[in-house]
C-alpha cells in the first residue's frame, strides 16, 4: 500500500526502481462466492408428520473477510407453515489457522412470533476433522442462547460418505412465547449416507434424524400439545455450487 502510494506520487523516481505497477487481478485479493446446502431434505416422522427441511449457506468474499447468509428452516407439509425459519447474515474473519469468527444478525420468522438476535460465533475445523460451528445469540429482548453444531464425515469410499451430525441449543434465559425454557433446549442428531453423484455438486442421501426437547422446553412443548421427541426418516441431497 505504501509502495503504491509513493509510486503514484513520484512517478519519475519510481520508474527507476519499479518499472510498472501490478494492477492485475493477481495483485487483488481473490474474491470467491459459493453456495452450499448441507441439508435439503424431506422428513417423515414416526408419527406421520411430513417436513421439508433445509440448511444452507451462501458466501461471498476474500480470505480476510467473507459475508455469509446462513439459512435454515422446517416447513410442515401438513400444517403448510414454517415450524422453523432462521436467516443469519454474518461477517466472517479468520482468527487462527483453522477457525473463523462470525458476527451479525439472525432473524427468525416462523409461524408465530418473530425474533431478532445479535450473533457471535466461531466456525472451523477442530482436530480429528470435526466441523464445528458454535454461536451465541442475544435477542432484542436481551434473552441469550447458544448453539453448537458439529459434524463428521466418514469416508466409506471416496464417493459413499456417512455423515454424523449433532446440533444442540442451550438457553440462558427463558422465552416462553416461542416455547423455549431455560437450560438445555433441544438436540438434533442425524446420520446420513450420501453418494457423490455429480462431482460434489449433487450428493443425494438417505438417513435418520432424532430430535429431542429437554427440561422446561419439553414441558412447554407438552403443554402446547406437541411432541418432545421425534424420529425421522430423511431423503434429500447435499449441494455445492
Amino acid at each position, binding site marked *: 500500500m505504501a*509502495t503504491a502510494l509513493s*509510486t*503514484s506520487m513520484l*512517478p519519475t523516481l*519510481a*520508474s527507476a*526502481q*519499479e*518499472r*510498472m*505497477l*501490478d*494492477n*492485475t*487481478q*493477481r*495483485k*487483488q*485479493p*481473490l474474491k*470467491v*462466492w*459459493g453456495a*452450499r446446502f448441507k441439508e435439503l431434505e424431506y422428513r417423515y416422522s414416526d408419527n406421520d408428520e411430513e417436513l421439508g427441511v433445509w440448511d444452507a449457506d451462501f458466501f461471498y468474499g476474500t*480470505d480476510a473477510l467473507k459475508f455469509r447468509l446462513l439459512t435454515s428452516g422446517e416447513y410442515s407439509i401438513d400444517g403448510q407453515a414454517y415450524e422453523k425459519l432462521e436467516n443469519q447474515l454474518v461477517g466472517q474473519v*479468520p482468527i487462527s*489457522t*483453522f477457525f473463523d469468527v462470525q458476527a451479525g444478525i439472525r432473524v427468525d420468522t416462523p409461524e408465530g412470533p418473530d425474533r431478532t438476535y445479535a450473533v457471535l460465533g466461531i466456525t472451523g*475445523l477442530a*482436530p*480429528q*476433522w470435526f466441523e464445528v460451528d458454535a454461536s451465541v445469540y442475544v435477542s432484542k429482548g436481551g434473552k441469550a442462547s447458544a448453539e453448537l453444531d458439529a459434524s463428521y464425515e*466418514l*469416508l*466409506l*469410499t*471416496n*464417493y459413499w460418505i456417512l455423515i454424523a451430525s449433532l446440533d444442540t441449543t442451550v438457553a440462558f434465559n427463558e422465552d416462553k412465547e416461542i416455547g423455549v425454557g431455560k437450560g438445555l433446549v433441544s438436540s438434533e442428531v442425524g446420520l446420513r449416507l450420501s453418494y457423490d453423484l455429480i*462431482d*460434489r455438486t449433487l450428493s443425494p442421501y438417505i438417513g435418520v434424524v432424532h430430535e429431542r426437547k429437554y427440561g422446561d422446553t419439553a414441558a412447554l412443548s407438552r403443554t402446547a400439545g406437541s411432541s418432545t421427541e421425534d424420529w425421522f426418516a430423511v431423503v434429500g441431497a447435499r449441494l*455445492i455450487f
Partner: protein
Amino acid sequence: MKKTLWAGVLSLLLPMAGFAGEYNLTVDRVEIDTGDFVKKGIGYNGKSPGPILRFKEGEEVTINVTNNLKEMTSIHWHGLILPFEQDGVPGITFPGIKPGETFTYNFPIIQSGTYWFHSHSGFQEPDGAYGAIIIEPKGREPFRYDREYVIQLADSHPHSGDRIMRNFKIMPDYYNREQQTVGEFFSDVSKDGFLNTVKDRLAWGDMRMMKADVEDLQGFTALINGKGPKQNWTGIFEPGERIRLRFINSSAMTYFDIRIPGLEMTVVQADGNNVQPVNVDEFRISVAETYDVIVRPKNNQAYTIFAESMGRSAYARATLTPEEGMEAAVPKLRKPARLTMADMGSMHGMDHGSMDHGSMNNGNMNESDVMPDMDHSKMKGMDHSNMDHGSMMMPEGGASDPFYAKGSGLIPSAANGGKFLSYADLKAQRPLYDEREPTREIELRLTGNMERYIWSINDVKYEDAEPIRLQYGERVRFKFVNETMMAHPMHLHGMWSILDVGEGQWNPIKHTISVQPGTTVYMETEVDAPGQWAFHCHLSYHMAAGMFAKVIVEGGPEPDQAVLSDLPLGNGGEL
C-alpha cells in the same frame, strides 16, 4: 514456390548469426477433445496445444500475437532469456494484449534446447493455451539422434480454471478422490496393527492434514500432444534409430512419472540445458520442467510411453511404433502415494509421540536440510544403494533420493526396480557461468494453509507482498524451505536457476526447480537481467492463491527506452 526455394538456399549460405524470422500466432477459442470429454478452451492458431515453434540460436525473432479472445491475454516464453519487456507477464513486464489487438514480440534467441510457451493471463494456460519451442543450437550437439518428437504433457480438466479455483476455495479437497477410507483403515490395521493405525490416524487428524494430499486436482484427462490415453498419440520410428524425445510438462498441477517399458532412456537435457548423459528407467517431471531423453528401440515392436501422475489418479499414454496401428501393453496405475510425517518437514518431527503442536507455524525447527550435510563425492558413482539415508526411515522398497525428506512418502522408485532419475544425477554438460561465491543468501519459505487453500512465500500472499529486490551483477543464493506438505515447482523468469546438487560448477542450469515437501533446496542465480520478473510456484492454482513474487533487478544497463515508454505505469490487465 521458386522464390521460397531460393530463399531457403540463400539462408543456408548466409552466416547463422543476425538473421531474422517472423512468426504469427493467433489466440483463439477452441474445442478440446480429450477422448473422455470435449471442452471449450483456448489455443493457438486454432488448436490446443499450439504449434511447435522452431527457432535457431542467433536468430532475431518477431512474433505477432493476435488476441481473438474477448478477454486480455499474454504469452510467456518459458525458459527463454530475453529482455524483460518481452517476457509476457501482464502487470510485471507489459500490460497484456487486449482483445482484438496484435502485439509484436521481438527478441534475439541466445540459447538452444527444448522450451515452451503459455499464456500468463488468468487460467488460460490450464484451459489449453500452451505450445512447444524447439531451438536449434548454433554448434553441434554433444549427442546424436536420427529423429525427434516433442512429448508435451498436460492435465486437461472438464472444469474451467476459474471454476476449479473457486471449488478449491470452497472446499480444498473438492477434487481429491484418493482420500483414506474405512477400507484403507482396515487394510492398514492388518498391515501395521490396530493400535499403530489408530495412532497414525489420530496424529494426522490432530494436524488436520491428509496423507492423501498429493494431488490437489484430480478428474483430469492426461494428454500427450493434445491426445488422451484413448486417442493414443503415436510416433513412428525405424528400429535401430536413436529417437530424441523432448518431454515438456505443460500441466497446470500434475507431476508425472515417465517410463517406456522395454527401453532405457538417456537423459541429455533438462530445462533446455544439456546435462551429462544419465541412463534411467524412469524419471519424474515436475510441472513446467522439460527433459530431453534419447531412446534407441532396436526391435520391430511398439513401445508405450507411460506417464503416471505422481498421485496416481491418472496417466498419459502414447506409443512409439515402427508402423501405424501397432500398440504395446499399457501398464496399470500403481497405488496412490501417501505422505508420511517426514513430508511435514519443519512442521513436525518424525516422532509421533512427541509432536509439539504449539510450534506448527514456526519454521525454525530443524528442517531436513539436505544439501550441506550430504557428501556428494560419494554420489559420483550414482549408486544410491551405498548411501546411508537412514534405512530405518525408508518406505517400502527402500527408495531414497536426497531431494526428498528422509522417509518421505513421495520418493519415487522405478516400476522395473531400476534407476529412477534424481536431481542429484543432473550435472551440466557445460557450465554457463564461472563458479563464484554467492554475494548473499535469500531465504524463501514456501508456506500455505491447505484448509483455506492459501499459498504464500514467507507466509505472505503476493497481494500483500513487497517485491524481492536484487542488484544487477550479484549472484544470489536462494534457499527454498518447503514448509507445506505439497511439492512446489518454483520458476524464476528471466534468469537461470542453478540448482545446487553439490557439484560446484557442474551444477545443472534450470528454469524450474521442484521443492519437495519437508525439504530445503538451494539454487543460485547470476543476476544478469535488468528489469522486473515473475518468480512463482508453477502450479496454476497455487500461483493464483498467492505463491508468487515479483523480482526487481536494480541497476545494470538500461533496457530499451523506446519500449519502456510504451509501458504505461500501472496499466491494468488481467491476471
